């Protein structure tokens, strides 16, 4: 990677003079990036740590000093791949020591000497380039070696199986089941604490547990019927033979793989009660690796077809083992078998072999390699990461979403470039829970809620949806946050942080509210429309089933007259006037609506004297609009009598209204259960004089059929 491009050096110094002196001294051989404080240095590293070959770092700088930069480089582990040369007039030994402890490679003190600076830079770059190259070579070789040795073991164990005429999957199953049981042991007890590498070694060694069968004559090995005592005695020697073969290896005696394989070969037929072979070991005298493989072997034998038997089902096999029908096992392993039963059942039927060309296998291996501390990330990986980062940044910018990545330890948040700009925050925020700017935007409560939701997620359901209000430049806006908690692959998994994005949904949300509001109202009078009023009323009744409510319907007497005489515009004004009067005179909590035409509805809760309340509203509606005299006819239904069903109430009120009109208008009536004789409680009978002109008998409005 270094051959084809100039090496990149980041100079962080607050003095422009000093930066340009350094840049001049280094000449044109390098790409130089200059920054004037520590914060900028961290931002540059954040974006392209993988491309920076060297950092020249001043100590005393505004915003964030050189030690701050070193701390960040340690937190994000950039220091492992990017060398730092500290430059400063500071020469207090304690400070120099502190800088070395934080991982710097070299220290240049002022005044700069061109030759010295040049040499130190060249040496450091050379050293690191060499180290990177070596690391890559080692990675490649380890990969090659692991691949070859695993392949050799696979081939070897298949030879055994081939002679054995067993199913080709036996070895794979033993390997997988051993792995599952070992992991289950880790979950259930702290006694063994198998590391990832222990598990890998034991399950690989498990593959050659029967290697000694190579020395058993074929006619005994594959005899279809029962073995005679003598034959069985020969068969039993395979454990001892396999162990001896391993013991006889001229090399590798101290390799963990060989040591474990020896234990497994020799003792995988021992039983916990001492009744196994060849040595009759008892209890924990049997190495745990051999105990686990013994269990895996028995399980696989039971669930496979053999020359002398058919395969049993998973359930039956587990039951037989737990009942002690195949010899006695460690009670801990019995618990593990019970607990891991489901995963074992699934693993046992899947005939997947480790395929070295499978990218997933390689990726897992690479991950494992990367986790080894002495190994730095290979250049290829870094390039891939860089490519991913570029892609991510591009999409993040395009989407106008605020994307973020949160890590629990050390607590920090990285925000996408666009997001940080939009929020006016830094791209990296350390300890966001105590960052004043973050708290000002999101509020402590919002932060805690989100953190709580993420913490309560599970590896299987890691996604969290959270709508919240943020404050940006003094304005509140609705945001939708979708985040995915990240959980480690440990057992039990550990919550390590989250990735997520926040989208501005303010416009959508406001629009929705506006539409809802719009849909709920009658455009002319501003009262609710019937549909929405019905919902509100049903809601009120559902909330207070013990209360009493009244529902009234009224229409404007002789309204048709107003329309016909003065035109529709005037008619509309009359309706608006009535709506206003109604609104002004009804008590708080009353639902009022325009049902349609000149028909209105009101609904309210009462304790007693509903008649007085109705009378008050009824009287308030009587008056004039310009020269047009206004009065109404009203029908009222009570929940006390009819119950809480809206349609029943509405129908009853409508019947009472009909009765009121038939009774001569300008009156209200309560529904009394008898539609033909609806009771009028208080009926201020309108005088003929109050009738507008032309409202004579025979007018279509007068006809009941018109209603």
């Amino acid at each position, binding site marked *: 990677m270094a051959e084809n491009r100039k090496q990149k050096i980041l100079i962080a110094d607050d*003095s422009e*003079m*000093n930066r340009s002196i350094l840049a001049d001294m280094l000449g044109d051989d390098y790409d130089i990036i200059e920054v004037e404080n520590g914060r900028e240095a961290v931002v540059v590293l954040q974006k392209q740590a993988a491309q920076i070959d060297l950092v020249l770092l001043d100590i005393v700088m505004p915003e964030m000093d050189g030690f701050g930069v070193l701390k960040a480089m340690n937190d994000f582990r950039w220091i492992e791949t990017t060398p730092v040369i500290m430059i*400063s007039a500071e020469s207090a030994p304690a400070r120099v020591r502190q800088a070395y402890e934080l991982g710097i490679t070299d220290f240049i003190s*002022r005044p*700069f000497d*061109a*030759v010295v600076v040049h040499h130190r830079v060249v040496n450091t770059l050379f050293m690191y380039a060499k180290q990177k190259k070596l690391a890559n070579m080692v990675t490649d070789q380890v990969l090659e070696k692991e691949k070859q040795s695993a392949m050799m073991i696979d081939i070897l164990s298949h030879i055994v199986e081939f002679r054995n005429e067993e199913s080709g999957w036996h070895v794979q199953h033993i390997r997988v089941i051993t792995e599952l049981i070992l992991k289950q042991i880790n979950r259930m007890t702290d006694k063994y604490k198998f590391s990832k590498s222990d598990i890998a070694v034991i399950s690989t060694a498990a593959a050659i547990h029967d290697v000694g069968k190579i020395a058993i004559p074929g006619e005994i090995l594959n005899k279809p019927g029962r073995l005679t005592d003598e034959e069985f005695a020969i068969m039993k020697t395979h454990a001892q033979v396999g162990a001896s073969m391993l013991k006889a290896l001229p090399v590798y005696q101290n390799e963990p793989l060989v040591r474990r394989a020896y234990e497994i070969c020799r003792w995988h037929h021992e039983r916990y009660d001492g009744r196994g072979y060849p040595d009759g070991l008892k209890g924990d005298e049997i190495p745990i690796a051999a105990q686990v493989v013994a269990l895996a072997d028995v399980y696989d034998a039971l669930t496979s077809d053999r020359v002398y038997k058919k395969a049993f089902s998973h359930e039956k096999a587990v039951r037989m083992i737990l009942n002690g029908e195949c010899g006695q096992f460690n009670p801990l392993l019995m618990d593990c078998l019970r607990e891991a039963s489901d995963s074992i059942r699934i693993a046992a039927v899947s005939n997947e072999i480790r395929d070295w060309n499978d990218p997933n296998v390689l990726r897992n291996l690479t991950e494992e390699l990367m986790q080894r501390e002495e190994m730095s990330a290979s250049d290829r990986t870094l390039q891939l990461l860089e490519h991913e980062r570029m892609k991510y940044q591009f999409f993040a910018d395009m989407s106008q979403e605020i994307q973020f990545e949160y890590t629990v330890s050390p607590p920090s948040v990285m925000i996408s470039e666009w997001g940080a700009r939009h929020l006016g925050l830094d791209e990296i925020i350390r300890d966001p829970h105590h960052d004043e700017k973050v708290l000002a935007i999101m509020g402590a409560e919002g932060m805690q809620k989100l953190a709580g939701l993420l913490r309560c997620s599970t590896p299987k359901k890691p996604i969290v949806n959270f709508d919240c209000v943020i404050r940006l430049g003094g304005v509140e806006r609705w945001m939708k946050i979708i985040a995915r908690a990240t959980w480690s692959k440990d057992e039990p998994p550990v919550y390590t942080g989250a990735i997520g994005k926040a989208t501005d949904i303010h416009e959508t949300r406001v629009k929705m509210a506006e539409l809802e509001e719009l849909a709920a109202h009658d455009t002319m009078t501003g009262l609710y429309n019937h549909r929405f009023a019905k919902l509100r009323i049903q809601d009120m009744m559902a909330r207070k089933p013990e209360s009493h409510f009244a529902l009234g319907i009224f229409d404007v007497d002789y309204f048709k007259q107003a329309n016909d005489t003065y035109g529709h515009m005037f008619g509309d004004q009359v309706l608006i006037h009535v709506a206003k009067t109604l609104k002004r005179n009804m008590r708080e909590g009353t639902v009022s609506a325009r049902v349609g035409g000149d028909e209105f509805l009101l609904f309210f809760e009462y304790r007693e004297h509903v008649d007085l309340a109705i009378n008050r509203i009824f009287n308030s509606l009587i008056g004039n609009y310009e020269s047009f005299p206004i009065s109404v006819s009203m029908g009222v239904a009570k929940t006390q009598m009819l119950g809480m069903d809206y349609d029943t109430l509405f129908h009853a009120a409508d019947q009472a209204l009909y009765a009121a009109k038939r009774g001569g208008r300008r009156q209200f009536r309560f529904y009394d259960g008898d539609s033909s004789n609806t009771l009028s409680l208080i009926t201020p009978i309108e005088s003929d004089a109050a009738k507008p002109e032309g409202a004579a008998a025979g007018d279509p409005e007068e006809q009941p059929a018109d209603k």
Partner: protein
Amino acid sequence: MTLQECYAALEGDYESVMGRLRTERLVQKFVLKFLDDGSYALLVDSMGSGNYDEAFRAAHTIKGVGQNLSFNKLFESSHLLTEALREKNIEAAAPLYEQVKADYAQTVDAIRAYQASL
């Protein structure tokens, strides 16, 4: 006026700077650039407004630049001022600040004279 005479006028060490930066071209470039450096203005501002953290950093920068260019007189006084300000010893800093002002004036005067003779 030669660059060497300029260094004599500002009481710097011409031999030392030439030894480190190697060419007269480079030394000349940075000496002239010194006239544009904002650290002194920042020092005066922050001393005036009592922002001693900022003044410390400005003095520190002047010191660093003076050291790099072997302006020994200015380096000495700015070094002492830096240390006084680091300890927030304002009383001690006051006379040192005056000294830095004088030395800075002397340095700038010498460079301007040199610049005029080019």
